[in-house]
């Protein structure tokens, strides 16, 4: 918010080369225009390239691209329903798993008496964000997969890798994002209302549920938006634990089987080797790029939706 406030005090004057009847040209001004133009051009052209390349697949496949689960590139059939479902399910489940930990963890930390301990725990969680995702993926293979296989093999888990494993791994990865945003909002609200709450004799639990949580909801939602974006876009770690089974839908063996066993998401499909195989097969390439475009639109969509809900109320 501070940044947008700062941006508002600026105006578009910097772009006017001609004003008040005379030229105002300086190296800084030219350079800034050039750089802004360059950045805009790059981001726009990437987007336009995606749309242009993927339009072919969209025309050919039409709705069946989104409504069927038969991705067999050797038969030139591209139905990506299972991929979309995989991405949404892993992202939503990782949020569901992560939400209680981050919410109550942040609130507990906010109420911790020892400043030293609080800061060090906060630093530790923030540091989790800087761990490369491939490291999480390896930890997932080495620790999570065998542990889950042992726990859930009774319920029909076959390999230890699957959508549930991916969701749990993702929930650990998005924890710092959710945690730090929520902690910031909680500490602001605490500072603002703590004295009043104490003077009214509210307990900490009551204080949280009746004041901090409802007032902090916009911040919580925006942290969910960012978490969702990260979870849906994560590739390497998910790639290593999701099992990579194409065209699996919950209609095959029920939701429990679907969650426990291998699946595929958009990112793991794109991260796989198919882009090499698609060489000189424009149909295949176009279908892959359509997937990429959908991923971009999905993360832009959810982020902007949730950010509009939470706009300006922190």
């Amino acid at each position, binding site marked *: 918010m501070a940044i947008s406030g700062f941006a508002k005090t600026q105006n578009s004057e910097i772009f006017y080369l001609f004003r008040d009847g005379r030229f105002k040209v300086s190296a800084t001004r030219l350079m800034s225009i050039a750089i802004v133009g360059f950045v805009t051009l790059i981001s726009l052209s990437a987007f336009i390239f995606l749309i242009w390349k993927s339009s072919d697949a969209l025309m050919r496949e039409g709705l069946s691209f989104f409504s069927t689960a038969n991705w067999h590139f050797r038969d030139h059939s591209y139905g990506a329903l299972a991929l979309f479902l995989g991405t949404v399910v892993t992202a939503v489940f990782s949020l569901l798993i992560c939400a209680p930990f981050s919410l109550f963890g942040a609130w507990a930390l906010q109420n911790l008496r020892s400043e030293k301990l609080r800061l060090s725990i906060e630093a530790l969680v923030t540091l989790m964000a800087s761990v490369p995702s491939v490291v999480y993926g390896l930890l997932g293979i080495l620790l999570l997969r065998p542990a889950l296989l042992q726990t859930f093999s009774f319920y029909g888990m*076959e390999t230890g890798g699957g959508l549930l494993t991916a969701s749990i791994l993702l929930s650990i990865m998005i924890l710092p994002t959710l945690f730090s945003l929520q902690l910031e909002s909680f500490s602001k609200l605490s500072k603002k209302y703590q004295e009043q709450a104490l003077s009214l004799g509210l307990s900490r639990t009551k204080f949280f549920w009746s004041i901090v949580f409802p007032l902090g909801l916009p911040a919580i939602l925006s942290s969910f938006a960012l978490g969702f974006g990260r979870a849906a876009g994560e590739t390497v770690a998910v790639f290593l634990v999701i099992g990579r089974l194409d065209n699996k839908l919950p209609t095959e063996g029920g939701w429990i089987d679907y969650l426990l066993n291998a699946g595929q998401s958009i990112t793991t499909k794109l991260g796989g080797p198919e882009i090499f195989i698609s060489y000189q097969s424009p149909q295949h390439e176009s279908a892959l790029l359509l997937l990429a475009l959908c991923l971009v639109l999905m993360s832009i969509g959810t982020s902007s939706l949730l950010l509009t809900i939470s706009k300006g109320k922190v």
Partner: protein
Amino acid sequence: MFIRALFSLGMGILVLSSQAEASIKIQGSSTVGPIVVKAAEILKSNKDIDIVVDTFGGSAAGLSSLASETAQFGMISKEISEEDKKKYSNVHFTTHLIGSDAVAMVISKKLYDQGVKSLSLSQLKEIYEKKITNWKKLGGPDQKIIFLNKEPGRGTWEVFVKAVYGQGNVPSISHLEVGSNEEAKSKVINTPGGITQLSVAWAQKDPRVKVLGLSIDGKLILPDEHSIRSKKYPMARNLYLVSSKPLNDGQKILLDFLYSEAGQNIVEDYGYLRVRQNTK
């Protein structure tokens, strides 16, 4: 300050471009990978040639990176098929044979000890098409068969399909996908009831996995040196480096090294077969 920054930027670009000149980029099969990586290490210290090896995407990536000119050598662990020739009709591939290997069907040692010792090609076909889904039918324990399929584009997969289906059509069935040899091996160890296609050399080095024999016309054939060389074993294959352009000096040095006694010893160290049988 500004000038200094520009200067260092220029130096950086110079260093980068001079490095790019002397380095060879090689992409492709993870079966051929270790040989070339080892050779690259030796050539790096002896002759100061930079060789970058990337096994992402397997044999298909080896060919496509040659076609898109992002690599100088492709590594493939299969023959160049008619389909490939059609696909890359504008590229002229030259293959350089550096060794031989075979694809084996591999299961965990536990499963092997429980009674699964060999498969026939028709059984393999039925497993691939999910018609046989339990090891019980194949003399093993009551356990679901988890087929860990090499991902599309891997040379291993193509060799497997050619042996099982010949020139016929391969049905489109979704399986669990594994990428490199290392991944296939570790997953078959950790997955109860798992079976995968794996390079024989990789399988034989690890006591935790066992190679299944193939029974053909009632005769059990194991992928040993004799049956691979005589091509009796249906999934025998050659390992190639592929180039699409006239070779430069660095490439020639690498090939000469791989053909030399020392180079062929590396091939053998990794469990593959040398190009020519050692007559010593």
